[in-house]
């Protein structure tokens, strides 16, 4: 871009040189910052694991009170130190943020420790719910995208455990994509509302990015016969009878939130209408799927078609927003979709030798093509 400006005579060669130098030093600083973030996050996780392992390996020797005290000191200590470094001293914000993240993990470990002391059922979803109640305020107290991702991940875990706890394993497994999709619709919708609150852009983006990833994974699974074929409804019946309300409530909240965001942002960008519109359409499709079970494999074809369209939408939105993360997401799912469908359609049709050779050629050729396109796009982005 700087070279183009120089050629067009917008900037002089000295200015171009200075700009390039500044850009290089900024990039160097950013790399160094990223390095600190990665190292301190790994360090924080190691400390957390160490504390948990110490308690686990000395289970016999330590009294209940000692175990609780060790974890409580570690939890509140890492939180206090993280706060001190990030918001009070402000000299090591990345390390501080990693310690705050660690404190959420240790808070969860404390809950599970108390559960162990009282022999509470090992896979109880209520334990994850308590962890979630503790994690969500962190997002709003510190307005951090990383804590939003962790809180949303805990939410997904709670949803999965809740359904596993109240239905059989086979039922939950088959229904998991649709449950996770509804949960994603809710997080996507509520995440979008955060754009309306000042100072919450990072949180909004984190919620939206994660929910799109999970929704894509859910939809990807729904393109397979095991999850959305006619026979999957046999498994799903008992779930759809008892837990249907939760799926409706989550998707309903998502729909309302998306509508609310569109109504509040009158005259908003066409892209926002397009994004929320796609979300609304997908949520409605999923609600139709669970309300009107198919008497054939119709939904299987619908989900395959919708997934292919969605990948294109994702790449389009990524290009429009000049957001490489969204484009990468779209390209990843394009590749996954092609590989999965290749296996799906040609496994029985082709002789094995041709199947693998043709598959290998598609893989190599496809990956070279996609990577070239990805780089071209990245080059074209201003940011």
């Amino acid at each position, binding site marked *: 871009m700087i070279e183009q400006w120089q050629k067009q005579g917008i900037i002089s060669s000295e200015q171009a040189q200075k700009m390039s130098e500044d850009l290089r030093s900024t990039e160097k600083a950013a790399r160094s910052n990223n390095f600190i973030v990665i190292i301190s996050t790994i360090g924080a996780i190691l400390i957390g694991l160490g504390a948990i392992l110490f308690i686990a390996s000395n289970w016999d020797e330590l009294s209940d009170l000692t175990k609780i005290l060790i974890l*409580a000191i570690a939890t509140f200590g890492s939180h206090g130190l993280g706060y001190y470094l990030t918001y009070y001293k402000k000299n090591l914000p990345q390390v501080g943020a990693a310690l705050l993240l660690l404190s959420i993990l240790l808070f969860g470990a404390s809950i599970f420790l*108390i559960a162990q002391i009282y022999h509470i059922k090992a896979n109880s979803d209520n334990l994850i719910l*308590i962890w979630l109640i*503790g994690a969500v*305020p962190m997002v709003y107290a510190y307005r951090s995208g990383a804590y939003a991702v962790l809180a949303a991940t805990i939410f997904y875990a709670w949803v999965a455990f809740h359904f596993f706890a109240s239905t059989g394993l086979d039922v939950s497994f088959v229904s998991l994509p649709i449950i996770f999709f509804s949960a994603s619709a809710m997080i996507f919708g509520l995440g979008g509302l955060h754009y309306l609150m000042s100072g919450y852009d990072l949180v909004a983006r984190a919620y939206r990015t994660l929910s799109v990833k999970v929704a894509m994974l859910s939809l990807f699974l729904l393109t397979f016969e095991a999850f959305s074929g006619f026979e999957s409804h046999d498994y799903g019946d008992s779930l759809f009878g*008892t837990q249907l309300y939760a799926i409706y409530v989550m998707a309903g909240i998502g729909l309302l939130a998306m509508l609310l965001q569109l109504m509040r942002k009158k005259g908003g960008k066409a892209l926002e209408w397009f994004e929320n519109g796609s979300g609304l359409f997908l949520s409605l499709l999923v609600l139709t799927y669970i309300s009107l079970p198919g008497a054939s494999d119709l939904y299987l074809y619908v989900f395959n078609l919708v997934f292919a369209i969605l990948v294109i939408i994702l790449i389009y939105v990524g290009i429009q927003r000049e957001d490489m993360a969204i484009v990468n997401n779209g390209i990843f799912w394009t590749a996954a979709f092609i590989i999965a469908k290749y296996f799906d359609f040609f496994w029985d049709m082709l002789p094995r030798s041709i199947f693998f050779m043709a598959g290998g050629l598609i893989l190599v050729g496809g990956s070279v093509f996609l990577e070239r396109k990805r780089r071209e796009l990245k080059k074209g982005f201003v940011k």
Partner: protein
Amino acid sequence: MRLRKIKHLPLIIVAVLWILLLAGFLGYKGYTARTGTEILLKVLPVDPRDMFRGDYVALRFEPNVMPQSKLIGSFNTITSGTTMYVSLKIDNGIAAPTTMQIRKPGEGLFLRGTVQGVDVQTIKLEYGIESFFVPEDKGRPIERSRDVYAKVAVDGSGRAVIKSLLVDGVEIK
């Protein structure tokens, strides 16, 4: 000074909430363990392959699978997730289930459970006491023994907490 106090508000809010959650959880279960009536529940044999998983022993009791004949009231409203109360009678110090119902019994000793599944003749329930955590490699004797009882504290609302296991007459906490 005032501004500084507001500055620390996030820290204070999160710390207070976490203390409340941890202390509340600890106190809630501790209250049942301390004040609840102690009963003994016979642990039923479990397939050894499933029984010992990692650092906990999976337990099954008689009240986990209740015949529908012991149900008081309508069967139609019972689905997975329904809360039910199972009344207990004590015989020679061992608790055994008598009847079950959706409404909380007015008197007597009872367990509060959640329906996990309903089939033609039985209702499967869980009470949150189906795991017993043990140090690594300490689960084998429990797995092998057929004489296992769980010492359980049950409070006035039917909530239960395991206090210990009696394996061949030896108490394991």
